[in-house]
């Protein structure tokens, strides 16, 4: 039998009952559409999320230093992190529960008309903090190694903290009182990109921080070059505390690919199951209708056998009919799915991302569904004895 004859017969068989063929295709169309939309929207959304990963998050590494009987990280150790290739800036920070809510005043006067006491967070930091939080000195300067070495009683205020305390200018070297201790304000730090909570905090040099439980480093902020974060995240603990690196906790940005995969994974799992269920339903539909068609066409099968059709010819025709049904469903489903993905993207102003392989595989999947669904009916048709079929 010539393949073109087989195709002719299968096509004629399908077109003989066009409405039924279209309805049969519907199940596969739904299944494939669901699959394509799921995969397409997931890929698009995943890409969208990756797009939101800006440079800041991708280059920020934080090392948390847990409480320990002896200090795991010394203030000077930060210098070793700065020397790592790929590190742009780094600073150590000390925070404690004891210093989280301290009463801070800008003068010792009792002024009944305004609230002079502010409850602010006090932290200690190494001199590199402005660079590490990607901020800038709005007024004055940050303390340096000299201040620390001398144990100068100086503070730097976060932008909001300065506003709350009513300190706007530093020409007169204003002082703030933390508890009863007076400190000279030498700078105001603002425009923070990282650790924005520090904008309403008071920064002390580590030398005087011991008084408020801020003697040991609790966090190290590291900024890396683009793409270096993953490597630095591995190296920083060893640089900070050789021998104790396992005790340090590193918070590093998840790599973009992993983030995308995670999002895709979440969305996919649910809808993929949905799509597969629809596909199975579609397959059952095709199987059912093909079986009914076989039963209706018993006389035709008998005729074909009488005209010299072997069992395999009969089987091949019904298999091809169901495969073509599935293929049609796959093509229509893939097309509708792609249109839906593009429509969703148009509505959300996203960039549609679609795997070309998906567009090709979807119709193929439909054909396979049709093929599998046609197996049993085709077998039934082929098994039919011509004597019985012609009766």
């Amino acid at each position, binding site marked *: 039998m010539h393949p073109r004859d087989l195709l002719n017969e299968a096509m004629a068989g399908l077109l003989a009952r066009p409405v039924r063929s279209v309805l049969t295709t519907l199940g596969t169309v739904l299944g494939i559409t669901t699959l394509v939309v799921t995969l397409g929207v997931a890929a698009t959304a995943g890409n969208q999320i990756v797009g939101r990963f800006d440079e800041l998050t991708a280059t920020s590494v934080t090392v948390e230093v847990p409480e320990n009987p002896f200090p795991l990280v010394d203030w000077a150790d930060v210098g070793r992190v700065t020397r790592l290739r790929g590190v742009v800036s780094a600073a150590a920070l000390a925070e404690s529960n004891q210093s989280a809510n301290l009463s801070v005043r800008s003068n010792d006067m009792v002024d009944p008309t305004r609230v002079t006491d502010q409850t602010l967070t006090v932290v200690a930091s190494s001199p590199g903090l402005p660079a590490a939080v990607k901020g800038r000195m709005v007024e004055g300067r940050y303390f340096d190694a000299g201040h620390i070495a001398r144990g100068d009683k100086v503070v730097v205020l976060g932008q909001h903290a300065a506003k709350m305390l009513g300190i706007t200018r530093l020409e007169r070297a204003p002082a703030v009182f933390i508890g009863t201790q007076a400190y000279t304000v030498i700078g105001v730090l603002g425009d923070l990109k990282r650790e924005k909570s520090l904008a309403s905090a008071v920064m002390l040099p580590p030398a005087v921080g011991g008084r408020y439980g801020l003697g040991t480093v609790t966090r190290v902020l590291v900024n890396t070059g683009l793409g270096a974060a993953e490597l630095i995240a591995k190296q920083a603990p060893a640089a900070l505390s050789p021998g104790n690196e396992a005790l340090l906790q590193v918070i590093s940005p998840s790599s973009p690919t992993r983030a995308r995969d995670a999002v895709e994974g979440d969305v996919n799992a649910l809808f993929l199951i949905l799509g597969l269920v629809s596909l199975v339903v579609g397959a059952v539909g095709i199987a059912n209708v093909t079986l009914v068609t076989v039963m209706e066409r018993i006389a035709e099968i008998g005729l074909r056998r009488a005209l*010299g059709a072997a069992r395999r010819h009969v089987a091949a025709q019904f298999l091809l009919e169901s495969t073509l049904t599935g293929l049609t469903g796959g093509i229509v489903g893939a097309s509708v799915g792609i249109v839906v993905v593009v429509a969703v993207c148009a509505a959300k102003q996203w960039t549609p991302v679609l795997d070309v392989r998906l567009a090709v595989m979807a119709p193929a999947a439909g054909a396979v569904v049709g093929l599998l669904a046609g197996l049993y009916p085709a077998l039934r048709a082929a098994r039919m004895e011509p*004597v019985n079929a012609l009766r």
Partner: protein
Amino acid sequence: MPEPVILLDDLTKEFPTDPPVRALSAINLRVERSDYVAVVGPSGSGKSTLLNMLGLLDRPTSGSYRLDGIETTMLKDSARTTVRGSRIGFVFQSFHLLPHRSVLENVMLAEVYGRGSRKGRRERALRALERVRLSHRVEFLPGRMSGGERQRAAIARALMGEPALLLCDEPTGNLDSKNTDAVLDLFDELRAQGMTIVVITHENEVSERAARRVRITDGTLAEE
């Protein structure tokens, strides 16, 4: 002497029911080239079983059946199918035309399962339709034609591929007398052209036109 088209030698068919039914018992029949044989008999006499045997649609229990010189009882299923497709043209009582295909397509269907080339198939089908005088109905759907025309289309399909045997099962059973005459006239013509025809019928009008009558009663065959 050339091989006869049909040579049945003690052909027996039993159906394995309880008790077994012997539908054909040791039948002998010889049909020569361009014979025109009518097989007659009441219903239940084994007519249909004989037709199935002659048409290679079913296997006998014992005995031998040589069709056109080929011993068919030993053939495997696929080989029997090939012989059936190439040597036998079937004409059925209910025409068995595909309702959604034109007359021409229905006739061309006869060659779909053969080894012959696709080339010239359309011309051969048109010639076959010419032989049954249906050239004016080539593109018609079977549903829009009279019973006689439909049966002629079916005969044209059976004639495709020049079969050795035209096997007709109650070919006029669904036709009025006028159409019956037309079909029987056609058989006469075909026989004159050298076609071997076996007609299974219970109508006297049909069997009387045949050159030879064979009666089947309770599974046994007798010349009349």
